[in-house]
């Protein structure tokens, strides 16, 4: 029987080899060989073989080129884009970023400094208001037509999930969602069945279109890069859809998906007012506040706070689950957290099977106590 624990074999792909063996190493190797072996024929053959390998490796590296579709609000880049850039850099080759919007200057300036970005492509047009996929898809297709990328990716956020499958269908390729690992330029790992299985997929499409799980890739450094920027041809508006308005939840707390500490509440909180207990606790640790589906469905908190298979995926350093039983669908969204704490009065709650520290207690007593202890 094979062990059930899962590890990824470190493979040396042609790509890695090409990166490791720089041109200088090759010439040194050839020079050394030449001095050792005087029979010209042998040297010639070896020389040719090495040259061929070098050409092939160089070709492979040049051959990869990735387009990252940047997510932004015309003012700031969304953090998940930085994770997508890290993923793109793992493929080797050039990384370009497309900024499409109504007002791109700030984001282009921000992106030009991100480490690992070679080129920023800018598409500014009023039609890109609200980042509607009907409008963005043609510009991505036009960009693809021009630059012939081998990979097109974005973060697996509501934006990326909405847009990239539309692009893929137009290119007649099967996309890959929410990847957590890149094994080689055509082999990816993603989770299926609410994170209860890992699927390793080989993609034989001419263009690989995929979304990236933000928590699985470190964000790229926002300083140190020096990308060039260039405008790409803007298409005219398609006009089959129109963005009307948005209602964003206002919060002083850090953003859920990127927070180092997350405090989440479930049905056990019993009401929306009681969530204040969690906000107080979160305050002491500069934590974001999340929720289970039960808490969202009961109307305690808005849906954008939901953590789980169909909500947000988080992987903070510390996740504190309060009054959450730990259904499969909730675990899918948080079980990659470094440390999990569960506070629940039911000792049989499945959340205790994944928690590092479990406290069987009444949350209405334990949470204020903890807040007081941390305020000290």
């Amino acid at each position, binding site marked *: 029987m094979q062990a*059930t624990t*899962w590890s990824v074999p470190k493979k040396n792909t042609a790509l890695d080899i090409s990166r490791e063996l720089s041109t200088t190493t090759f010439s040194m190797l050839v020079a050394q060989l030449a001095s050792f072996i005087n029979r010209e024929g042998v040297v010639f053959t070896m020389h040719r073989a090495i040259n061929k390998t070098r050409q092939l490796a160089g070709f492979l590296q040049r051959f990869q080129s990735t387009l990252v579709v940047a997510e932004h609000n015309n003012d700031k880049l969304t953090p998940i884009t930085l994770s997508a850039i890290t993923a793109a850099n793992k493929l080797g080759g050039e990384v370009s970023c497309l900024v499409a919007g109504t007002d791109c200057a700030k984001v282009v300036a921000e992106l030009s400094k991100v480490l690992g970005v070679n080129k920023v492509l800018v598409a500014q047009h009023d039609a890109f208001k609200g980042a509607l996929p009907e409008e963005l898809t043609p510009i991505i297709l036009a960009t693809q037509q021009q630059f012939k990328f081998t990979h097109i990716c974005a973060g697996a956020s*509501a934006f990326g*999930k909405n847009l990239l499958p539309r692009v893929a269908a137009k290119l007649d390729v099967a*996309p890959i969602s929410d990847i957590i690992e890149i094994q080689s330029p055509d082999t990816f790992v993603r989770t*299926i069945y609410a994170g209860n299985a890992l699927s*390793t997929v080989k993609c034989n499409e001419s263009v690989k279109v995929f979304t990236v799980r933000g928590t699985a890739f470190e964000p790229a450094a926002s300083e140190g890069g020096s990308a060039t920027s260039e405008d790409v041809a803007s298409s005219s508006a398609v006009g*089959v859809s129109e963005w009307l308005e948005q209602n964003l939840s206002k919060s002083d707390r850090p953003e859920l998906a990127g927070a180092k500490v997350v405090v989440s509440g479930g049905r056990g909180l019993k009401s929306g007012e009681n969530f204040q207990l969690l906000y107080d606790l979160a305050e002491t640790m500069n934590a974001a506040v999340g929720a289970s589906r039960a808490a969202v*469905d009961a109307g305690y908190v808005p849906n954008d706070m939901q953590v789980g298979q169909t909500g947000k995926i988080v992987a903070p350093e510390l996740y504190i689950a309060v009054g959450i039983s730990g259904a499969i669908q909730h675990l899918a969204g948080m079980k990659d957290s470094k*440390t999990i704490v569960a506070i629940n009065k039911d000792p049989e709650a499945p959340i205790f099977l994944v928690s590092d520290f479990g406290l069987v207690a009444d949350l209405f007593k334990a949470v204020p106590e903890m807040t007081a202890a941390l305020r000290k």
Partner: protein
Amino acid sequence: MSGRVLVGVKRVIDYAVKIRVKPDHSGVVTEGVKHSMNPFCEIAVEEAVKMKEKKLIKEVVAVSCGPQQVQETIRTALAMGADRGIHVEVSAKEYESLGPLQVSKILAALAKKEEAQLIILGKQAIDGDCNQTGQMTAALLDWPQGTFASEVTLEAGHVKVVREIDGGLETIKINTPAVLTADLRLNTPRYATLPNIMKAKKKKIANVKPADLGVELASKLQVLRVDEPPQREAGVKVESVDDLVGKLKEAGRI
């Protein structure tokens, strides 16, 4: 509006089942495991049936792709109020590699054939967790898409859709014909009553082959292996809040 709505429904392993990975790492065990309609598809069916009850549309057609067993899923949709079903028959073997690209091609072909005004799907299937089919179907038809919908208002010539996005909600207005994908908050699906289940047995399910629709099933995605995720090490129970805070400080988490 007097149009027709196509609703895609998928048969998946029941959401409450703890899945098992096959020892040969080729997939997960599906034989003898409880299956039911994908929860997001139930929401899609409910929304379509509600539209019909409000007399905004005239017919609801439930579609499912897969082997013989998917007919049960179509029956469930019929019992919830869909008018008729279409079973796109795919052999069990072909079904293993059937992905969103192929399904969206099938749905797009059916939408044209049936002259549908609207396609409603779930936002994702809880087995593959792809969240792609609706978006791809819209692309193939060149229709607009209203994904992750939590509120849908059908008006003449367009649909107003409130969508669940990362920071909250947004409202868009899209022309019809259109593709919508349902989020959890769109509605609460009804239970099929026994009389409706009996009635559903009389409703028609047409049988179609992908080839009849001109859809090629070959896939360029190849699943190399399926593994169990890494197991977490067993944790400890602490006795008090002080103990918990102490442990977290020790671990450097706070």
